[in-house]
């Protein structure tokens, strides 16, 4: 067969006789046992289809199209090439053919993939036209195609054709479908609002077919929820309210509730009005979906009404108690999460269930419970709860463990650590998190370790202790998730080395053999930390000798700025506190090397031997790195080696007990130099810092730099990815040496200090103070915590209650630069919003129906709608005169409303639009009342002019009250 057809270009009779049907194709695909066989079968089928679909015989064509649709839909093949063939089948009079074509088109057509649909405009119009020859069986798929695949142009052209179906009062099965289509058409092309909006509103009326009402309320729900500003829909509130009270259809009630949840915040009287019906529904109905929607409405929009909130919380408890249905428990917890901190009593009421849920088999439920618990955190219970959660994370599954860590990090770090009082505890908690076997949050911990160091001066001693514990453990080095944390720890150890009890131990940890497992950018940080520690140790050593000398001579030369810590201590205590030093040393993990024993006393005395041991060690390990392929590592290694070379080169060093020669100018100079290099303190940098830097005169920022290319020309100069990466991540390390960049944060810091000096603790804080607090961190071993689950369940009742325990010590100063600090503001989906704005703008226009000043959105469709308008002419002429009044009314009023500055230009229109609807409704149904109503309105204009209510209120009042 294949050979026969290959010879002739046009399909033969044989082909059509033996054409495989869709069922045949499915059977072949099912019988192919392997993926390869299936792919071959599909390729063969596609070949056949390509041939058959060109057949002049429509029956052959339609079968081919069906097969292609099947393959495209379920096997993901592109079928846009066959778009034209689908269109060819649309005019056929045999029902299955256009239906198959519509199916194919609605599954595959879109303005982004095919531009052929406009060719079918005429055919679509024909199928939509209300004639006896058109059965709904072909009009419905035509509507569906229009709903799913139309471009703005096509939507604009065909929108008027929806009108006959939309306004059809009988129970035409097409009417709900036309409503759903109109919704999509409106979304694609907001210009059609003037045509489509009124019939949609009419669908809401009592007389309509219940299915049309249901579809219309669905459409309004969609419109109101998508609009950035739903106020244009406020005038419809009376209609919605009627449905809320009268409707017996749960689907409709749910949608109405959703709309009200969106409208209630705009207009307090809407909220007051719907409270009763919502409570009624909550009490009367058992359908869970409806009850849940009521709860959600109450929690999102009716929080001011205590009775409703209590009723809803009671219902939530029922949800939470349903042991056999995880869905209800999940949704119950989720609803609780909607409540803000103002209603924490609701969570408190269900505390046991919430905590128990942390242990549920369902990840959804656990996650919601976790969110609830985190929402309850306050500064008095944060320690208990976080400790409990971190312990619990150790034995939960990897995914949830990391979710817990994530939540804890996010909550504690929120708003520059506003919850944290005891930073020693928090820093050790960070260290503890790292020990979690499933740990994968390296980036955030890295950031917070460094950030706490920069911002909280008082936390530095504890920070360096945590860093030391991390650095010293060889087991951590092989874990790729941890290298970021280790990098932060290394940076901390270098930057705050003056708080360390044992700098030499740190150097050993930083240079241990397994560090070669680290990625280069972390190694670079390690080497730089070694550099800083070496410099610090050497300076301390020299100062200590000088201090000794000066004491001996009786000349106090040692009052130098910068590193007072070391020198002061040395001067004050000299070697009398040997015992104390040994005590401190005992607290440190035991080390077996002689050099470490030596250095236990370092705090008081750096020995000549220990320094020379240090130099040897560094030289041995860092030496090979100066040949390293990674430039970052290589450069820093060479820096370190250079420093060692200078130290060794001094005359002083070569004399064993060189006390007499310390006046050597060279040494003094060098120490001064190194001190000045590292004594500048690094501070946090505001996210807005760059913006504050004024552009220097004569510098044109957007000047083309293309000439630079000629100069640089060489591609090799571009830094490789890893280099730039490390530069970015550890820029703070660099800024240390680069005083130019360090000026900015430091000046800010100084300024802050000047202003709030009161809250700053004295600079030279005694180190021993940090030992006054119990050590919060017992390095946690991954042993079995069998009792943890029970622990969690038995979590002390008070731990969730924000009890006002007296803080044992004042909260340390946390540096905050400005409001924007640490907050990344993001404004997304602007494109979408602009479209929605267009739509609500269009709808405002419709409700306003301002004939005199047609807005730009009307123009394109005005030719089509003008006809309609003429029909409504008599009604309109009356309206226009009223409009003038209402406009002036609106003007006067919005001048008084101060709270609505942002949308001034719209307000006026909403105002009058509301009134228009108002008038329209009246003239439609209550024509007798209407005249009275207007009079009443005018009355208010005159009498109540100084009202300071929101502009919409009169409208709502008239309908609801």
């Amino acid at each position, binding site marked *: 067969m294949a050979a026969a057809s290959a010879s002739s270009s046009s399909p033969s009779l044989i082909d*059509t006789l033996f054409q495989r*049907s869709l069922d045949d194709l499915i059977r072949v695909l099912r019988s192919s046992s392997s993926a390869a066989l299936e792919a071959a079968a599909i390729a063969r089928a596609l070949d056949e289809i390509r041939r058959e679909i060109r057949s002049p015989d429509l*029956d052959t064509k339609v079968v081919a199209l069906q097969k292609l649709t099947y393959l495209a839909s379920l096997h993901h093949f592109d079928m846009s090439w066959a778009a034209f063939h689908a269109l060819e089948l649309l005019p056929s009079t045999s*029902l299955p053919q256009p239906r198959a074509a519509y199916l194919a088109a609605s599954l595959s057509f879109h303005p982004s993939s095919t531009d052929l649909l406009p060719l079918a405009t005429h055919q679509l119009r024909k199928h939509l036209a209300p004639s006896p020859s058109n059965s709904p069986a072909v009009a419905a798929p035509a509507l569906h195609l229009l709903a799913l695949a139309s471009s703005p142009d096509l939507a604009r052209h065909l929108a008027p054709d929806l009108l006959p179906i939309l306004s059809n009062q009988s129970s035409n099965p097409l009417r*709900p479908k036309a409503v*759903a289509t109109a919704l999509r058409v409106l979304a694609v092309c907001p210009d059609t609002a003037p045509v489509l909006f009124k019939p949609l509103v009419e669908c809401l009326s009592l007389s309509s077919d219940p299915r049309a009402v249901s579809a219309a309320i*669905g459409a309004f729900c969609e419109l109101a929820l998508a609009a950035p500003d739903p106020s244009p829909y406020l005038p419809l509130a009376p209609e919605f309210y009627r449905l809320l009270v009268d409707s017996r259809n749960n689907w409709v009630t749910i949608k109405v509730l959703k709309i009200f949840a969106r409208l209630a915040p705009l207009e307090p009287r809407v909220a007051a009005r719907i409270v009763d019906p919502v409570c009624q529904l909550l009490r009367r109905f058992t359908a869970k979906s409806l009850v849940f929607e009521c709860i959600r409405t109450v929690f999102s929009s009716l929080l001011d009404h205590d009775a409703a909130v209590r009723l809803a919380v009671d219902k939530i408890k029922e949800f939470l108690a349903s042991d056999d249905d995880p*869905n209800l428990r999940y949704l119950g917890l989720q609803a609780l999460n909607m409540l803000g901190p103002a209603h924490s009593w609701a969570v408190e009421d269900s505390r046991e269930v919430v905590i128990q849920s942390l242990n549920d088999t369902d990840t959804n439920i656990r996650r919601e419970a976790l969110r609830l618990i985190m929402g309850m955190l306050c500064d008095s219970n944060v320690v208990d709860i976080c400790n409990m959660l971190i312990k619990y994370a150790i034995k939960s599954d990897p995914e949830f463990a990391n979710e817990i860590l994530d939540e804890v990090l996010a909550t504690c770090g929120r708003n520059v650590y506003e919850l944290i009082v005891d930073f020693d505890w928090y820093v050790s908690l960070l260290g503890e998190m790292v020990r979690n076997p499933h740990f994968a949050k390296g980036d955030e911990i890295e950031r917070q370790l460094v950030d706490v160091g920069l911002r909280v001066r008082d936390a530095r001693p504890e920070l360096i202790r945590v860093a030391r514990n991390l650095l010293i453990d060889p087991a951590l080095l092989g874990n790729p998730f941890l290298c970021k944390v280790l990098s932060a720890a290394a940076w901390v150890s270098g930057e705050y080395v003056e708080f360390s009890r044992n700098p030499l131990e740190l150097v050993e940890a930083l240079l241990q053999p397994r560090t070669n497992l680290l990625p280069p950018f972390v190694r670079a940080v390690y080497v730089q930390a070694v550099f800083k520690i070496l410099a610090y140790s050497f300076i301390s050593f020299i100062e200590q000798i000088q201090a000794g000398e000066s004491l001996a001579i009786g000349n106090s030369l040692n009052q130098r700025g910068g590193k007072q810590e070391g020198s002061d201590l040395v001067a004050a205590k000299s070697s009398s506190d040997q015992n104390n030093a040994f005590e401190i040393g005992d607290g440190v993990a035991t080390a077996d090397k002689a050099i470490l024993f030596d250095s236990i006393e370092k705090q008081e005395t750096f020995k000549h031997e220990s320094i020379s041991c240090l130099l040897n060690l560094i030289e041995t390990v860092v030496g090979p790195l100066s040949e390293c392929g990674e430039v970052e590592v290589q450069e820093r290694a060479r820096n370190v080696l250079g420093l060692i070379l200078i130290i060794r080169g001094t005359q002083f060093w070569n004399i064993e007990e060189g006390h007499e020669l310390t006046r050597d100018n060279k040494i003094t100079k060098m120490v001064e130099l190194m001190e000045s290099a590292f004594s500048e303190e690094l501070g946090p940098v505001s996210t807005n810092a760059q913006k504050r830097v004024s552009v220097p005169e004569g510098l044109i920022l957007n000047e083309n730099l293309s000439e630079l290319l000629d100069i640089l020309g060489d591609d090799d100069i571009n830094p490789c990815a890893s280099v730039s990466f490390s530069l970015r991540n550890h820029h703070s390390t660099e800024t240390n040496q680069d005083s130019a960049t360090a000026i900015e944060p430091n000046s800010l810091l100084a300024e802050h200090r000047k202003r709030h000096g009161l809250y700053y603790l004295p600079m030279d804080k005694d180190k021993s103070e940090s030992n006054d607090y119990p050590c919060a961190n017992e390095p946690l071993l991954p042993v079995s915590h069998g009792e943890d689950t029970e622990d969690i369940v038995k979590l002390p009742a008070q731990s969730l209650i924000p009890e006002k325990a007296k803080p044992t010590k004042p909260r340390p100063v946390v540096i905050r630069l400005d409001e924007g600090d640490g907050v990344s503001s993001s404004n997304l989906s602007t494109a979408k919003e602009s479209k929605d704005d267009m739509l609500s703008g269009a709808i405002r226009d419709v409700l306003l129906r301002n004939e005199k000043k047609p807005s730009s959105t009307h123009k394109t469709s005005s030719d089509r709608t003008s006809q309609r308008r003429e029909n409504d002419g008599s009604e309109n002429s009356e309206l226009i005169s009223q409009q003038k009044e209402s406009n002036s009314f609106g003007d006067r009023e919005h001048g008084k409303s101060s709270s609505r500055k942002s949308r001034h230009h719209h307000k006026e229109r909403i105002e009058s639009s509301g009134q228009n609807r108002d008038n329209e409704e009246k003239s439609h149904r209550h024509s007798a009342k209407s005249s009275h109503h207007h009079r009443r309105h005018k009355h208010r204009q005159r009498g109540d002019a100084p009202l300071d209510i929101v502009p919409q209120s009169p409208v709502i009042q008239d309908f609801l009250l």
Partner: protein
Amino acid sequence: MIRAVIVMNTQGKPRLLKFYEFQPPEKQHELTRSVFAVLSGRPDNVSNFVEADAIFGPGTRLVYKHLATLYFVFVFDSCENELAMLDLIQVLVETLDRCFKNVCELDIVFNFNKMHTILDEIIFGGQVLETSSERVLKAVEEISRLEKSSSSVSFVPKSVSGRFGR
């Protein structure tokens, strides 16, 4: 609105795909696979909702039901009620059951067009239009009756009759 309806078997083979917001074929493939990856990782007797922000964009969720060898999945956004969507899956399954008399995966495999006809009666352009399986069934039967009467010769293969008719 409802963003998508997916019926797939427990091996991840799609049986019915309908996206109410256009997705190109490759994207459909990717979405189906990610949905399957999420669903296959979930044990039975847990809740039927999954937050689908990562797959279908912000604010979306999916609800699914695992019946015999099939997953029935609805993807929806904040305009729909979660529990109502769960009910709607029940409506769909009930309708299929009545339509095919004890529906099984094979019925769904071999009735590609009919599946779409049924689904289009329940959900239209992402909006729920009909929740009574009886009325859906009636509408579907009416359509197939019309289709049959429209193509007059049903016992001779259509292609042949078409050829001889000219």
